[in-house]
């Protein structure tokens, strides 16, 4: 099977002269596709009407996908490291596209369980494998600027929803002329939903193949021109040693970083999940919101833009100021901004928008900077697998964030009657959550030498499974 062997790790090693700037667009072509997961709300009402199901029953599709994202990233991380990015991206594309096609079959035949199986289960596996597939490769190609590289790729996940939302609305209008995306109560027909799912499945598969074709791993020992690894070793929180994924989860720093990611995502997801009703509730006069539904939709789009931009800008900034300081900014300044939002957010729309947009940029930045933080602490040896295990924090936060904000809001009154004051308990709780993350970040220390991989004593095997580079013991006890 020559086609399949071309996917193997040893056939993915870059020839001499291969430009490393081909790797970010390869990674982006995957992340821009799987980022569609955050645009499911566009056709949620149409699915509810088509199946005659409840909000919860349809919401379960997304929940299954996110849980599978975390599980497949955690379980499949080591497989991705061993088999290389090309095979991982191909597998991701197959699962992601098959998920859409099985989901389309479920919609066409009126069987919701097939949508759970397709988009939720199969698509979720594609999400998890696709999310982590380019990360360690990018870090190896950009040892001088890992934050910029991973920021570029993970920016695509934020951008994917920005592409998929308007595209889905336009496709549904095309397949069902009676559907009016400007009218919130308008729903598309089942046939239009089938057409949308089939189109997205095929289209995303083709785009992801661009990534499969272009991605390469650098040859062993490769380094960019002018890059001196000694400059990396000179930084106090950056190791040149290698830590395996199995050892990483036995370190205190891994779990502190898990708490940092969990807290940052929990706080951000609370706003993301509630964004549209939140801006309407904050600006309510005599029981009626001064912000129209269409404008609230614009606010959600603006948040997506800052979520995406934050992934690139803040992650790149972390290359200059360090990972620990940048997380102190995400969490520390985030606490201040959450408090300001609770106390002053209702005074002016511009202030409300400014505060929430910066908070969401920190949310995105937190996602994008994590792989580089992992590289600093655990080395490049199995950073993709370690990243996969850390993403369980995302799954946990995906449950905790909405639970916190919805729990508080349910206690304050019914949707459509809430005001800015109703959000204060939830927002101050998020300040507390961020404070926990802030302290956890302060406690992160270099990984003790006992967790480092031993220096290789024999020549590397011919099969190009990643082998740890020469371990440099840094002798710092945790």
């Amino acid at each position, binding site marked *: 099977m020559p086609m399949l062997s071309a996917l193997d790790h040893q056939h993915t090693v*870059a*020839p*001499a*002269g*291969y*430009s*490393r*700037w*081909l790797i970010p*667009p*390869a990674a*982006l*072509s995957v992340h*821009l596709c799987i980022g569609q997961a955050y645009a499911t709300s566009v056709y949620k009402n149409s699915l509810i009407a088509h199946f005659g199901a409840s909000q919860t029953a349809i919401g379960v599709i997304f929940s299954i996908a996110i849980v599978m994202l975390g599980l497949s990233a955690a379980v499949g991380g080591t497989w991705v490291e061993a088999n290389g990015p090309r095979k991982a991206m191909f597998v991701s594309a197959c699962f992601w596209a098959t998920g859409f096609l099985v989901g389309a079959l479920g919609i066409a035949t009126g069987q919701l369980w097939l949508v759970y199986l397709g988009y939720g289960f199969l698509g979720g596996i594609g999400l998890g494998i696709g999310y982590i597939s380019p990360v360690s490769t990018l870090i190896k190609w950009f040892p001088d600027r890992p934050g910029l590289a991973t920021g570029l790729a993970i920016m*695509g996940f934020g*951008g994917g929803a*920005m*592409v998929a*939302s*308007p*595209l889905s609305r336009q496709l549904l209008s095309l397949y069902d002329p009676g559907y009016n995306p400007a009218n919130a109560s308008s729903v598309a027909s089942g046939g239009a939903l089938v057409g949308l799912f089939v189109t997205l499945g095929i289209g995303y598969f083709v*785009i992801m193949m*661009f990534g499969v074709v*272009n991605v390469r791993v*650098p*040859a062993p*020992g*490769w*380094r*960019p*021109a002018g890059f001196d690894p000694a400059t990396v070793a000179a930084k106090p929180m950056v190791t040149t040693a290698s830590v395996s994924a199995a050892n990483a989860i036995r370190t205190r720093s891994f779990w502190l970083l898990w708490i940092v990611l969990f807290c940052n995502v929990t706080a951000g997801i609370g706003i993301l999940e509630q964004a549209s009703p939140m801006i309407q509730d904050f600006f309510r006069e005599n029981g009626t919101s*001064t*912000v*129209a539904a*269409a*404008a*609230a*939709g*614009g*606010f959600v*789009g*603006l948040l*997506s*833009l800052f979520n995406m931009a934050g992934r690139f800008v803040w992650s790149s900034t972390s290359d200059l100021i360090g990972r620990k300081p940048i997380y102190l900014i995400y969490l520390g300044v985030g606490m201040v901004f959450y408090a300001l939002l609770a106390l002053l957010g209702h005074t002016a*729309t511009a202030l409300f*928008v400014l505060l929430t947009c910066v908070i969401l940029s920190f949310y995105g930045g937190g996602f994008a900077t994590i792989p580089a933080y992992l590289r600093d602490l655990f080395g490049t040896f199995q950073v993709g697998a370690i990243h996969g295990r850390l993403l369980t924090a995302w799954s946990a936060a995906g449950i905790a964030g909405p639970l916190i904000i919805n729990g508080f809001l349910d206690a304050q009154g019914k949707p459509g009657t809430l005001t800015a004051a109703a959000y204060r308990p939830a927002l101050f709780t998020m300040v507390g959550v961020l404070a926990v993350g802030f302290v956890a970040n302060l406690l992160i220390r270099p990984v003790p030498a006992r967790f480092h991989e031993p220096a290789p004593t024999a020549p590397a095997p011919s099969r190009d499974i990643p082998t740890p580079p020469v371990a440099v013991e840094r002798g710092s006890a945790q």
Partner: protein
Amino acid sequence: MTVGPENERPGSEQPGKQGVRLLLSWLLVAALLGYGVVQTAITAAKLFAR
């Protein structure tokens, strides 16, 4: 910025072919992201047009 592998290996990529590959890859990404950003900006403008 000049970037490139330092170690020479056989089967090197032809510069012209790679240039086309680079151009097409970034064009695809730019088209997708550009579409998303423009569509989002159009929607977001409604927030301040009220």
